[in-house]
């Protein structure tokens, strides 16, 4: 469908990756030389995380999360009046939108939001709702906008952590911060925080295809706010993976809290 509001190039284009046989051939090996594909040693190793709150001057609250190469920016606006007057309710509402930048993946994405982005937006909403005190802003709506600048795996968990940090930075009352973590089940190994190539590992022949589970966790309250899994594995492997995710979330919690404290200190110094 021609997009009349944007400058369009030629109608049909192909990605150069379509013509590269090495790129299309996915590997089934998760480990090489005892290390994971991106150099991490253990299965349970999370990539180095960098978080920063309060970087967008125009937004009420904002945050930036970087999981090695995966980069996510989140802005929070509100609470403001509900868009549709018929949606009056004594509880506040949150509306989430996740968008991948066109240059965030190897193959260029379109500007229009596609099915996968809508799915991630719903998952993000599911993860944030239990943590926010919705009755603190009745008849109002808070908008959460997430842009993924670069996707190297675990985009959803980065988005969830980033969004909850932005909500806290905006001063929206919350019961607890939501920290998220993804785990990829491949054969018998559980890879925590998979990179893009690990997310797309080919099935080892003869074994179950494995799957991917994302867990949104509130560490102080020890409650799960979001659980999202697809694949084909046994229930005990799945339980093990969620347990690993929980443990990683506990570790990440400290980093998130420190970032928040630092940004509050900075705000107080500036004013």
């Amino acid at each position, binding site marked *: 469908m021609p997009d009349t509001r944007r400058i369009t190039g030629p109608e049909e284009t192909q990605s150069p990756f*379509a013509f590269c046989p090495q790129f*299309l051939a996915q590997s089934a090996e998760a480990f090489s030389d005892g290390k994971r594909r991106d150099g991490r040693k253990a299965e349970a190793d999370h990539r180095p995380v960098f978080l920063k709150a309060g970087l967008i001057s125009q937004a009420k609250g904002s945050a930036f999360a970087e999981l090695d190469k995966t980069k996510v920016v989140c802005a929070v606006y509100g609470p403001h009046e509900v868009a549709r007057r018929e949606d009056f309710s004594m509880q506040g509402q949150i509306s989430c939108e996740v968008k991948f930048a066109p240059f965030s993946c190897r193959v260029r994405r379109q500007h229009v939001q596609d*099915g996968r982005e*809508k*799915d991630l937006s*719903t*998952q993000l909403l*599911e993860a944030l*709702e*239990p*943590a926010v005190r*919705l009755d603190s802003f009745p008849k109002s709506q808070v908008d959460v906008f997430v842009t993924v600048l670069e996707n190297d795996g675990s985009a959803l968990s980065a988005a969830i952590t980033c969004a909850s940090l932005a909500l806290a930075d905006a001063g929206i009352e919350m019961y607890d911060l939501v920290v998220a973590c993804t785990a990829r089940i491949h054969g018998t190994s559980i890879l925590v925080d998979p990179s893009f190539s690990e997310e797309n590992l080919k*099935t080892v022949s003869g074994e*179950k*295809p494995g*799957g991917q*589970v994302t867990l949104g966790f*509130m560490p102080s*309250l*020890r*409650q*799960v*706010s*979001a*659980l*999202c*899994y*697809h*694949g*084909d*594995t*046994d*229930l005990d492997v*799945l*339980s093990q993976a*969620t*347990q690993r995710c*929980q443990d990683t979330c506990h570790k990440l919690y400290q980093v998130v809290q420190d970032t928040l404290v630092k940004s509050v200190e900075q705000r107080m110094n500036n004013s």
Partner: protein
Amino acid sequence: MVDVNLSEAEKTFIVHGIQDNFREDGRSNEEYRQMDLETGLMSNTSGSARLRLANTEILVGVKAELEEPKPEKPDVGRLEFFVDCSANAAPEFEGRGGEELATEMMNLLYRAYSASTVLDVSSLCLQSGKLCWVLYVDVLLLECGGNLFDAASIAVKAALFNTKIPSVKVRQEEGEETELEVSDDPYDVRRLDVSAAPTVLTLSKIGHNHIVDASQKEEACCLARLMMAVTASGSVTATVKEGRGSLDPDSITEMMQVGKRVGKAVNEKLLETLKEEEQKGLKRKTVGFLR
């Protein structure tokens, strides 16, 4: 989900009943309501099924079309899901009101059928990179009576079981165009092996307990639910947590165990019923829908 307005007293009544494993309609926490299933109702489709779960009515039609496979996966066919929440089911679904619910259902179905072991999609490919079968599964929601996701997934599995794909032979001579030979015999069809296909099981958390197959009133009391796609062999192909409340990690493990057990039983019973219905052949009485 479509919400019913309940007073606090009614909610307390339901919660207390569930605590004692005794629900409003006399069921136990792990019991399903009466289900009516019929397949092969619509002649224009390759496969169809109608499911009535107490007050919920779902109609599924499967159409098989020949198309080009996706460039990243040139050797496999695929399934495309589409859910339509008709305004018949609830007044909120008028116009674009039912879109949110429909998108959620579609996403869950895509997730559940995403694993390669669920359905043999490589057999749907006729010519690598050029021609494959694409199965368009259209789900129509006719009436809302609670527990829509479960009913939809059971109906989808039944419709896929009922799907008859015509046998097509591909002939390609040197330098000439590909020729497709469709068999003249209407009974020369291919069936799909749905023994590994999953059905969704929704476990709603009410108070400290969890129930299976919530009615509309029970859904209104529930703050969080866990939807699991379980196959007949007991493996879980998708799990999504939904709702404004949060869940305890221990209760999630418990719920998944219950889900696996009940899901297996549902799948077995479903396959049994489908085979029974198939065997009756032309002798069976068709009931039709919206009775």
